[in-house]
């Protein structure tokens, strides 16, 4: 008997049958009541069906490919862990970059999952709703796989186990937290620009591509597989962010100034968040593949530049901060590393002075700035350390009210002068790190006055471990910060002389001899 085989549906047909055709407009309740969030930001949308996911990914295909990615990832993780892979990394300093990366990123992924779950509910169109739901599941996957990859390192090295507690309390984790808090408390369209464009397009391209390629170069298969597996989803996320921007611009010319303001704001916020990624690339990877400056040029100047040139047809102009970011690419990684080096008692990872070879590499990669501004500081700190006087700043840092980075960046055009800006709102002074953060503050002061900055709150007695009486006569604010952070003291201080350094040497020796 002849069987009639139905022709397989094409990608376009399958996509429209499985997304838009399964959605309907509500009639018992007004659509505006069912989707109340998408109008108050001022964005005007006339036809939601114009938004299509260019990957044309349907849920069935999504599960199929994601499960394949997971199988590959866990096979590599298992193999890495079973073979004592942690001892095959270049040297034990490398572990510290993981402490920073894996200690700060998973909570942000979780926040992204929450944000995209909200978008998957709030967007009126079926196309964006489906794509946002997929992204929410992706972000959840990243959060979990990152924690799984930490767990093996956590058996051997100090300082990795309190990342969830530290996320809302630790001074240097506040910049990432504030980025996501700012995004998720904005409206849905601004959230899409913040995460879909600034975070995915600007930030993850550097964090998950050259930095992760560097992790591979340093022998860390666990971080490599987690990073690349995540980034394979990010390609879809960037596309979603870009579609959202094009969609807003095509739907109504009135959307242009709103979108432009968001692009200006979030490009800058993404740039500030990248300063610590720069330091991870330039200082913390023992074996380097490219400088942060080179990565910045490739993924932000060229790739971001291509996007802005393309969007010019809608009237979008290059973000206002762009010129300053180009100037800063020669400075921020050095300023960040020196900043962290100076606070050895306040991080659950170690810092160190680069070796002479590494300083030469930095001179070569940063011919305009390293020898002139940063080598002398590092050499001075090195001499002090060798004389038994390792620098240790025990004070609380001052943070920017908007990006919550510590104040450490220079005045535009003057590398010797630190940049501070000040705004007054309802009689109270607020400090920002730059003209761009000040502008963001001044535009929505009632939002940013609420920023929780632990290093400032500590001085007001608001960051104490349980049981401390802040009214006691001998109370000293900030004296119990290590308890408040739950900071493992073995994980603090200089790398030289640390447990990690000693243990790694012993274990590596054991791994090669009987």
């Amino acid at each position, binding site marked *: 008997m002849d069987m009639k085989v139905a022709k397989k549906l*094409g*990608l*376009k047909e399958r996509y429209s049958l499985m997304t838009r055709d399964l959605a309907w407009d509500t009639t018992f309740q007004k659509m505006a009541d069912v989707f109340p969030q998408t109008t108050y930001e001022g964005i005007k949308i006339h036809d939601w069906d114009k938004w299509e996911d*260019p*990957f*044309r*990914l349907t849920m069935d*295909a999504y599960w199929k*490919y994601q499960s*394949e*990615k997971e199988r*590959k990832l866990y096979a590599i993780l298992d193999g890495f862990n079973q073979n004592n892979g942690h001892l095959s990394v270049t040297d034990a300093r490398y572990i510290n970059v993981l402490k920073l990366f894996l200690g700060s990123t998973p909570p942000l992924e979780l926040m992204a999952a929450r944000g995209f779950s909200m978008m998957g509910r709030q967007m009126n169109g079926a196309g964006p709703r489906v794509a946002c739901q997929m992204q929410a599941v992706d972000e959840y996957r990243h959060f979990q796989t990152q924690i799984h990859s930490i767990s093996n390192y956590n058996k051997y090295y100090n300082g990795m186990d309190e990342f969830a507690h530290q996320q809302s309390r630790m001074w240097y984790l506040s910049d990432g937290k504030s980025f996501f808090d700012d995004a998720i408390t904005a409206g849905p369209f601004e959230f899409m620009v913040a995460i879909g464009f600034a975070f995915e397009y600007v930030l993850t*391209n550097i964090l*998950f*591509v*050259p930095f992760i*390629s*560097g992790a*591979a*170069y340093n022998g860390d298969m666990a971080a*490599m597989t987690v990073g*690349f597996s995540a*980034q*394979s989803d*990010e*390609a*879809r996320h*960037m*596309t979603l962010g*870009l579609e959202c921007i*094009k969609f807003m611009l095509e739907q109504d010319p009135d959307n242009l100034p709103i979108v432009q303001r968001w692009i200006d704001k979030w490009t800058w916020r993404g740039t500030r968040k990248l300063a610590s990624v720069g330091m991870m690339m330039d200082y913390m990877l023992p074996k380097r*593949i490219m400088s942060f400056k080179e990565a910045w040029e490739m993924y932000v100047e*060229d*790739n971001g*530049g*291509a*996007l802005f*040139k*393309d969007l*010019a*047809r809608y009237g979008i102009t290059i973000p206002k901060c762009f010129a300053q970011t180009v100037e800063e690419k020669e400075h921020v990684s050095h300023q960040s590393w020196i900043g962290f080096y100076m606070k050895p008692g306040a991080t659950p990872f170690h810092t160190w002075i680069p070796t002479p070879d590494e300083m030469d590499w930095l001179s070569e990669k940063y011919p305009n700035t390293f020898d002139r501004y940063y080598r002398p500081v590092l050499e001075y700190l090195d001499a002090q350390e060798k004389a038994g006087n390792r620098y240790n700043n025990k004070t609380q840092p001052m943070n920017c009210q908007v990006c919550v980075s510590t104040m450490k960046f220079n005045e535009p055009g003057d590398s010797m002068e630190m940049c501070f800006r000040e705004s007054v709102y309802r009689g109270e002074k607020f400090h920002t790190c730059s003209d761009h953060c000040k502008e963001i503050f001044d535009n929505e002061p009632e939002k940013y006055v609420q920023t929780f900055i632990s290093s400032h709150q500590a001085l007001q007695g608001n960051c104490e471990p349980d049981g401390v009486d802040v009214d006691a006569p001998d109370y000293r604010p900030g004296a119990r910060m290590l308890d408040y952070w739950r900071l493992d003291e073995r994980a603090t201080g200089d790398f030289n002389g640390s447990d990690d350094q000693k243990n790694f040497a012993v274990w590596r020796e054991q791994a090669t001899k009987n």
Partner: protein
Amino acid sequence: MSNAFIAFQKNDESRCIVEAILDDNPGAMVDDQPSMVKIDVPHRLVIKRETVEEKMGRSFDLQELQLHLITISGHLDETDDEFTLSWNA
């Protein structure tokens, strides 16, 4: 003119995909990096299912690219036969 680009994890399948891209995109530039490979093409980059199938010696669904992709640059259009990234300016 801006470059469209795509990057893959290095493995046997992506080796065939990269070969297919080089055949179908004159002017493609390959940037070999540790454990990954990035290909830039001025203006427009296309991956054709048929060419990939020829290189792999098996049938290939372009959505399988999801498994090896690391990042992309350009506006995307995906059909059953072609995966295209391009810039308008």
